[in-house]
């Protein structure tokens, strides 16, 4: 269970998160939507402890990660996997080495066992015969798939996604959406996805939370969000849907 309580965060005097409260249900896909530059990525980085709040609590299974030291935080982070916006693959390593990285760092498995898990995880994200390729040889969609394979390599309980469909064409987006749904079904992990892609959000989400001016202004099922009376939510959905229709 992840819970953010009264989180405040400012950068150079500019308030990005303002007394934000959010509860994320376990074993479900929660999508956080909001405008560009609205603090969605900052919020996600608070959950995994990459950014510490100015005030407030980030509770992961009851532990306030904002108060942990580096060593304790590293232990908590072993529960997490994260897919970054541009996948953040290590460009000096092959695809196989990227996926194997968390396994080599945190397990005592033999090389053979690691290789088997790498193959399995790559197959899980629909990738074959890419183990020896360098990240620079892959398309944007393939890079994200490798990023996801790396994120789930240690079978984490919580997986975070920072705009998984940004910069991809509609067909590729659909592929990633299906991948997110199938992976969550398969792993039963808690997925937290940051997105401004409304079509994708309604397809994958169990719960949707709308971030606006540093606060969660609405949280509910996709249907509840679609039928929301909140003018900001309505405006955001209609504009994004319009944009999606144009593409």
């Amino acid at each position, binding site marked *: 269970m992840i819970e953010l309580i009264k989180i405040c965060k400012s950068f150079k005097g500019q308030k990005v998160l303002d007394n934000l409260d959010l509860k994320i249900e376990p074993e479900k896909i929660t999508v956080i939507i909001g405008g560009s530059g609205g603090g969605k990525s900052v919020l996600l980085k608070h959950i995994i402890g*990459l950014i510490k709040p100015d005030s407030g609590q980030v509770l992961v299974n009851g532990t306030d990660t904002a108060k942990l030291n*580096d060593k304790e935080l590293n232990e908590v*982070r072993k529960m997490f996997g994260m897919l970054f916006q541009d996948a953040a*693959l*290590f*460009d000096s390593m092959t695809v196989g080495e990227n996926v194997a990285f968390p396994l080599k760092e*945190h397990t005592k498995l033999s090389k053979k066992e690691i290789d088997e898990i790498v193959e399995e995880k790559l197959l899980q994200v629909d990738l074959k015969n890419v183990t020896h390729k360098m990240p620079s040889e892959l398309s944007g969609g393939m890079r994200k798939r490798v990023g996801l394979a790396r994120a789930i390599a240690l079978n984490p309980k919580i997986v*975070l996604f920072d705009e998984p469909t940004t910069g991809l064409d509609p067909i590729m987006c659909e592929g990633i959406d299906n991948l997110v749904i199938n992976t969550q079904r398969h792993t039963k992990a808690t997925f937290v996805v940051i997105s401004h892609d409304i079509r994708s959000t309604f397809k994958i989400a169990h719960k949707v939370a709308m971030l606006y001016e540093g606060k969660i202004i609405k949280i509910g099922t996709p249907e509840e969000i679609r039928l929301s009376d909140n003018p900001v939510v309505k405006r955001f959905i209609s504009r994004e849907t319009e944009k999606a229709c144009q593409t």
Partner: protein
Amino acid sequence: MVRLLELAGRPFLIAVEESGRIILLLISTITWMLRPPFRFRLIFKQMEFVGVNSIFVVLITGTFTGMVFALQSYYGFKMFGGESLVGATVALGVTRELGPVFTALMVTGRVGSAMTAELGTMKVTEQIDALHSMSVNPIHYLVMPRIVAAILMLPVLTIVSDFVGILGGYFVGVELMKINSGIFMAKIVEFVDLEDIFNGLIKAACFGLILSLIGCYKGLRTTGGAEGVGKATTQSVVLSSVTIFISDYFLTSFMF
């Protein structure tokens, strides 16, 4: 007046702040050095990059430094008939100063800049955050091996530079300027102590620490995409070079 003082004091405050952050990075690196896993594979990989791959450039600069130093000393000493001291002057100059300093400057240009560019690119493409997210500390995984490798390899490169520098000086002095080979070598043995060479190597290790620490620090502090990486790399080379010269003075006054 107050505003003027504020403006004048601002760069000083920034310098103090940066120095503090660099020292904190050093302390953190030392702490991580003592914690397992010791990452020998990464250290050896960096030793190859810092040391083995820099040999060629060090050979060239070391040789020509010794040669030009011998040439200038010869012209100077010839004015009062002291040509016999050329060998000792070259050997002392090279082992105490020119070897460590020029090697450090060449490695700063080749390796320090690469460290900043590599870590800077990793920072702006979120690869550093990815390491954090996988419970791997970037100082342990990226900074520590680079700093250890630079501290270990700079003295080795300096020995090579000292050797070829003296060899270059010998070639110019004995072969070109016709100084007696026996006298050339005898004066080196007479004036150069093992301590001179040893202190030069300690200096080299300090320069290795400086250039790798600054290189990594600037890389980890990079912001703003490709432009930011370029800017950080330039700052890293300039700051490392200046710090090497300044610290050289203090190390010399302390050692000799």
